[in-house]
């Protein structure tokens, strides 16, 4: 793809309407071409101007607290001493083999340099994907997990809850779809059994497994293979307790 061809497509890219094949090719070009990347940045800024010019609507008053709590828990920042200890212990001992990833140091606040935290975040996600890959290999021996059909999302607590986790999905046109949920830092007070649900836009709910017990650190993992169901569009994930209360929630980015 030449710079001339790229420049022709950049406006649609910045506006967000460039179809996927061209989007991907253009993305590859931008990785190495500084000139086109600069042009793309300028056009992105121009496109974002449209959003900033909208007459503002006020978000609900409680949204700030939900956003702050979600980010802090996802980032592993301590909320209270008790909660931080629980989450740290859960993460260290959860089904994912996090022991080698330095989580203890992160949770203790000793690894607060930007680069270190960035690396830890990347590795946390990579470890979850690797765990997914290992379990999938056990379920379907001899078949690799296709990267472009594997999607990940994060689970965060609802309201004043604790814990967190990941959800991973294989959404494939050629093999049975598969999901795995990894949780940690939960309490027995979350009223077992916990049910994992996948939801789509139409409100359809799929059962994706049940957690009947937590390990000492509030961790568990659940995986489920869907014999007939296509998981495409089932991007919202909830972990609910036996009273139907949502304990953890998250969204899978199936476009990634």
């Amino acid at each position, binding site marked *: 793809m030449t710079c001339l061809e790229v420049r*022709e497509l950049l406006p649609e890219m910045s*506006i967000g309407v460039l179809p996927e094949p061209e989007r991907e090719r253009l993305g590859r070009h931008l990785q190495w071409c500084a000139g086109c990347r600069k042009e793309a940045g300028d056009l992105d800024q121009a496109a974002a*101007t*449209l959003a*900033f010019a909208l*007459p503002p609507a006020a*978000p609900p008053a409680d949204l700030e607290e939900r956003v702050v709590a979600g980010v802090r828990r996802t980032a592993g920042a301590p909320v209270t001493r008790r909660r931080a200890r629980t989450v740290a212990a859960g993460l260290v001992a959860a089904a994912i083999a996090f022991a080698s990833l330095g989580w203890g140091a992160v949770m203790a606040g000793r690894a607060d340099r930007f680069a270190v935290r960035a690396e830890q975040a*990347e590795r946390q996600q990579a470890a979850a994907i690797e765990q997914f890959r290992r379990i999938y290999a056990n379920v379907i021996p001899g078949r690799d997990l296709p990267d472009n059909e594997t999607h990940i999302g994060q689970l965060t607590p609802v309201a004043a809850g604790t814990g967190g986790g990941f959800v991973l999905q294989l959404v494939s046109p050629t093999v049975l779809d598969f999901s795995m949920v990894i949780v940690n830092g939960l309490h027995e007070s979350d009223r077992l059994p916990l049910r994992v649900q996948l939801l789509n836009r139409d409100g359809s709910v799929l059962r994706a497994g049940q957690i009947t017990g937590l390990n000492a650190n509030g961790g568990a993992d659940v995986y489920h293979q869907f014999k007939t169901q296509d998981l495409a569009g089932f991007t919202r994930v909830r972990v609910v307790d036996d009273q139907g209360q949502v304990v953890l929630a998250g*969204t899978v980015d199936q476009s990634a």
Partner: protein
Amino acid sequence: MTKAPRQAPGAAAGVYLEGDRVSNRPEGPLLAREEQQLVEGLLAGNEDAVRALYARYARPIFTLGLRLLGSAEAAEELTQDVFLAAWRKAARFDPARGRLSTWLMTIAHNLAVDRLRRETGVTRPHLVLVDEVPEVGWVDEEEPVIERDAAIRALESLSDAEKRLLGRAYFGGLTAREIAESDGIPLGTVKTRLRTALIKVRRANQDKERP
């Protein structure tokens, strides 16, 4: 940790980090260094940094979600998703390549458009609401965001036809080809007009470059 104080109405929402704390700066857009510090604070889960980012950008993100997705519930989910996505992508933010506001709004727009694509099962964004960019002249919000004032000024550089064209693509999700087929004009003409309109906005934006 204390909640970052909001700006008084009429003041610019300038905030910056001093060590682990977020302070108010009297006026003006964020410096590149301040943007980098806020993103570092976000990645570390620094409460003041998250609140500072929320104070500046939650409203436009929520507004965009409302416009594209059509419901307050969906806009709330989008706002939460944007901040979590920003945390995940924080290590890739480079202030030398673009403003923090652009980065966040690009994340928000992409998430909203992707959600529409997934939920409507179409290969392009679904046309949800009116296809025009907003009218100029809204100034009575309680907590003005400096980006909005500049955005309105930048859009004044466009003709009405250019505003409609950009709005059909950005808010309506129509590709250049679909606009060309709908209006019965050559594809190249639509692409040229889109590019011309964006470049006009970009030039206008350059007048408000960071100090």
